[in-house]
């Protein structure tokens, strides 16, 4: 049964009164994800915006057990929590790690890879706002090409990030874990049903959620959802789902409106035609890759449609 919005409970697992910025995409993602996951969970949060806006001691937005230590150990910490739950006979409890893109793509990649390779029985959620927002917008491996950050500034020599976005979902698919999916705060039903599927799956589950950031991306705070939609439309973000090796594309991008998407954000405003063309080319290549990869895995692992 696919979840509908009305199926989500009114009660918050992640409480109001948290201190995320107005219009925060991460807060939007996390409070809804938590509603799908329910109360029988344990949350680990590494250093991230979330570790601050979920409250500082003795305050806490989480109504469920919460653990935090450092930045780069989410994969390891949730492994320890999951094994402890097994020892305590709490098999019904889902252990969930929620990290930012820096904590996932960069400093936390090793621990994430280790936990995935061991197929630990956990859910790892990366909220992807495409830079280190907690420390004030420095580039991460997940920052897209061209984006201006405080460490890839628009200067005389170069303008914005010269490298391309690291494809973590693909790296996770290469770990052959039971469930890898991407989602976006702008596609509610897709998001909540992926969380539901993750919850119902055993073993290592990875979900990367596109979560626009008002101060980091430089846009009008009411436009979080619109930006997320445009990102999927233009191919800057794909909605994918890989179950037991079989990749499915949940939404075919129109591959247009890249410029509209870029011009809405301060971080891309400097981009000239050449840079935009480079970016366009890279996302088209990526799209061709994923189409082919979906077809290939359908053939290898069986299944019906390559896309919906």
């Amino acid at each position, binding site marked *: 049964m696919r979840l509908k919005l009305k199926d989500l409970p009114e009660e918050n697992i992640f409480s109001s009164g948290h201190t995320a910025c107005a219009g925060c995409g991460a807060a939007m993602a996390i409070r809804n994800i938590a509603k799908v996951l329910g109360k029988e969970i*344990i949350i680990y949060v590494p250093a991230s915006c979330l570790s601050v806006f979920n409250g500082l001691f003795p305050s806490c937005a989480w109504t469920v057990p919460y653990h935090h230590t450092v930045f780069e150990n989410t994969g390891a910490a949730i492994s320890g929590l999951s094994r402890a739950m097994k020892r305590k006979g709490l098999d019904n409890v889902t252990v969930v790690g929620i990290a930012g893109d820096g904590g996932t793509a960069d400093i936390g990649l090793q621990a994430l890879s280790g936990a995935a390779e061991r197929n630990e029985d956990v859910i790892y959620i990366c909220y992807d706002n495409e830079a280190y927002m907690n420390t004030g917008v420095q580039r991460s491996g997940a920052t897209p090409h061209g984006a201006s950050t405080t460490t890839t500034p628009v200067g005389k020599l170069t303008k914005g990030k010269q490298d391309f976005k690291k494809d973590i979902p693909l790296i996770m698919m290469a770990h052959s874990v039971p469930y890898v999916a991407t989602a976006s705060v702008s596609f509610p039903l897709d998001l909540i049903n992926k969380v539901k599927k993750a919850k119902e799956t055993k073993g290592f589950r990875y979900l990367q959620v596109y979560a626009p950031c008002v101060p980091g991306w430089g846009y009008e705070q009411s436009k979080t959802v619109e930006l997320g939609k445009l990102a999927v439309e233009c191919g800057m973000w794909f909605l994918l789902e890989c179950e037991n090796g079989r990749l499915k594309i949940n939404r075919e991008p129109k591959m247009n409106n890249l410029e509209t998407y870029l011009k809405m954000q301060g971080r891309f405003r400097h981009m000239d035609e050449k840079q935009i063309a480079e970016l366009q080319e890279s996302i088209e290549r990526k799209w061709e890759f994923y189409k082919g990869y979906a077809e290939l895995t359908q053939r290898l692992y069986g299944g019906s449609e390559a896309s919906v």
Partner: protein
Amino acid sequence: MRRVVGSNYATSHAVMRARVEVIAAYPITPQTQMVEHIAKFINDGIMDCEYINVESEHSAISAVIASQAAGVRSFTSTASQGLALMHELLFSAGGLRLPIVMGVVNRSVGSTGGIWVEYNDSMPQRDCGWLQMYVETNQEVHDMILQAYKIAEDKRVLLPIMICSDGFILSHTVEPVELAEQEEVDEFLPKYEARHSYLDPKDPIASGIVTPREYRQEFAYQIHRAMLEAKDVIGEVNRDFADKFGRDHSGLIETEFVEDAEVILLTLGTVTSTARGVVRELRKKGKKAGLVKVRAFRPYPAERIAEVCKDARAVGVYDRSVSFGVGGPHYLEVRNALFDSDVPVIDFIGGLGGRDVAEADVRSMYDVLLEAAKSGKAKRNIEWVNTRGVVLG
């Protein structure tokens, strides 16, 4: 059961008997056999525990902090670079007051070092909120793992603890060890009941949430106080253990011939055994030499040291690591303990990078001490033992 085993085996056996529930560890020489023994125990079906084959020491300590925070008795072990890699998380374990036990097989860290014993891995960790105990024999390693849980889990302490043993000298040397039976360990060490930190959706807690400056200093003071309380607990647990198992490791320190000693050498780790032989030999020659084996480095038994050394005319300190430009870290502790005494205190730095500390080296330390006792002053406070181009005394 008495068997001839190395310290890694002795540790693994004790961990099994302590009914540890989650272990996460990563192999590193000279600790590697420990992860192998435990893997075998589990695979042979004689040990029931969750074993996480992590991809680094950083993840090993992260995982056991999480499992211990969740309320489950946990263990890890490492050495050298691995301990350095864990450094960041050691503060979390101490700060969260988690009674984790870690077996540290001492080995030098960093360049100009190899795989052999030195304390420059564990000494820099002394301010992370962990108890640290140094041991002399494989039997003592085994016994201290069992005692460590009882010390760390005591509600007056609630701090993690490192049991430090000399790489190769203990890990790869087999000696007879009395391996504890399950029933006797169960009587000595009760099942862990998590009272302050556990993670269960039925009674939610927030553990380790970012702490603003309004609270940090009080938390730090609590750790400081718990560390001081641990001095009593170490003694009590030692007595309990001696009553149960008939082996008395004498708590914070152990002494030989100190009552009338004119010169006293304070040692850590396996050099103690060699020094025991030398001090007996000196006594036979009529020299009033004494020996103190310092077992607890954190908390440091400063009052006991001051008491034992009060009538000595020269005090020597053996150091297996250096605080560059200052002296050995152990020496600094002893100077602090003897702050109001006029007795000459001499640091003997030696055995770095696994260099052997032979009877002759220990004899030379006593020679320097006897000379200082006679003259009433030290020629030099920091002596380098068996170091080419550096003259001792």
